């Protein structure tokens, strides 16, 4: 594909919305076309500006109260006649149950939660590189890094040096991810850093996925009661290899 065909795809590429084949074509083109690569950087910066600085409004507390009250009032008088005849007839659900179903209905939320988690991890990864605060404990020795976390977090994360596979351990630091304490292990790959975030599965296990944001790749998985999320700017295949190596070394 030439520049004219690639250009309109760049934003969708950055948003992780292209199918694998077209995405690969865009990446290949950006590698060899400095003009399009500059356009991609410009898009990424603009997108970053919006996502980092645009304020999100949250519903005022009274609105929650008002709506709950309005819905309950709505559910009562018409319980048998109007409200949810489908559910009440075919499933024999009482109106109060139907109300509960409606109020608690959250499907579709998990997708956005996972997206937020990816955004949060990528932002943190970038910050760790910019602020030169990659490690709180700097050591290539897993037997130094692991005990360092003891007493600082209330869980004991698996710490494994993967130098033999080409991903030497560089250290670790304390983090906060998904509203809970997490640890970040730092690995090196050539001149690049890989942040591996680890936190216990308290509420939700992350579903295995790989994602891409602004040129950063993310691998997430869950194993033995821990959630894992690896972020790096190294190519996706190498990060997948890292994730696989870490997973198999844990056994």
């Amino acid at each position: 594909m030439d520049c004219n065909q690639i250009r309109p795809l760049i934003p969708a590429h950055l948003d992780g919305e292209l199918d694998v084949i077209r995405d690969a074509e865009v990446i290949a083109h950006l590698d060899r076309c400095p003009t399009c690569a500059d356009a991609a950087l410009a898009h990424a910066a603009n997108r970053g500006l919006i996502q980092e600085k645009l304020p999100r409004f949250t519903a005022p507390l009274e609105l929650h109260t008002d709506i709950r009250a309005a819905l309950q009032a709505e559910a009562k008088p018409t319980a048998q006649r109007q409200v949810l005849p489908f559910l009440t007839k075919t499933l024999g659900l009482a109106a109060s149950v139907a109300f509960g179903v409606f109020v608690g209905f959250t499907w579709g939320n998990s997708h956005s939660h996972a997206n937020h988690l990816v955004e949060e991890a990528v932002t943190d990864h970038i910050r760790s590189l910019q602020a030169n605060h990659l490690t709180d404990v700097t050591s290539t020795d897993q037997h130094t890094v692991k005990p360092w976390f003891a007493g600082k977090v209330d869980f004991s994360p698996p710490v494994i040096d993967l130098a033999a596979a080409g991903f030497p351990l560089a250290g670790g630091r304390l983090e906060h991810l998904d509203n809970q304490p997490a640890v970040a292990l730092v690995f090196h790959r050539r001149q690049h850093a890989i942040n591996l975030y680890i936190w216990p599965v308290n509420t939700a296990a992350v579903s295995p996925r790989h994602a891409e944001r602004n040129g950063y790749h993310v691998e997430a998985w869950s194993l033995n009661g821990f959630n894992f999320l690896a972020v790096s700017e190294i190519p996706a295949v190498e990060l997948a290899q890292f994730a696989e190596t870490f997973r198999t070394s844990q056994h």
Partner: protein
Amino acid sequence: MLPHMDAAYNLARWLLRNEHDARDSVQEAYLRAFRAFTQFRGNDGRAWLLTIVRNVCYSKLRSSRRIAEVEAFNENEHGIVNESAETAERLRREVSSELLASTLADLPEAMLEIIVLHDLEGMSYKDISSVVGIPLGTVMSRLARSRLRLQKELLERLSKESSHGL
């Protein structure tokens, strides 16, 4: 549905640009959603609820002064140039949240809502396509153009600000 209230309120607050109308519309949307819940066959409650919120907001906009503005959106608007990466990076550093918010608020609803749904709510192109009722390809091109338009406005306002400052 209640866990989606922040998303509902955020969309309404941006579209209507004031708290009072946003609260009214979200409450109205919840009542409509509750009455229509039996017809809901999808599996994404958030997209479904936001579709209703959006409809309520647009009715409100149409009944007030902004009919023409709401309807008029040229899908083929051209002439927005790509800024260089250098300029985009400078904007990223210099533009404040306040300037960004007030500039977005002045964009047409069609541009504003797509940025809110994607960049604030993290919705996929597919979900946005169902909420806004436009094809997937249009989501892609409209989002890209909306971001560029926002960038262009930001650049103008920023240079105005700095020339006032002299």
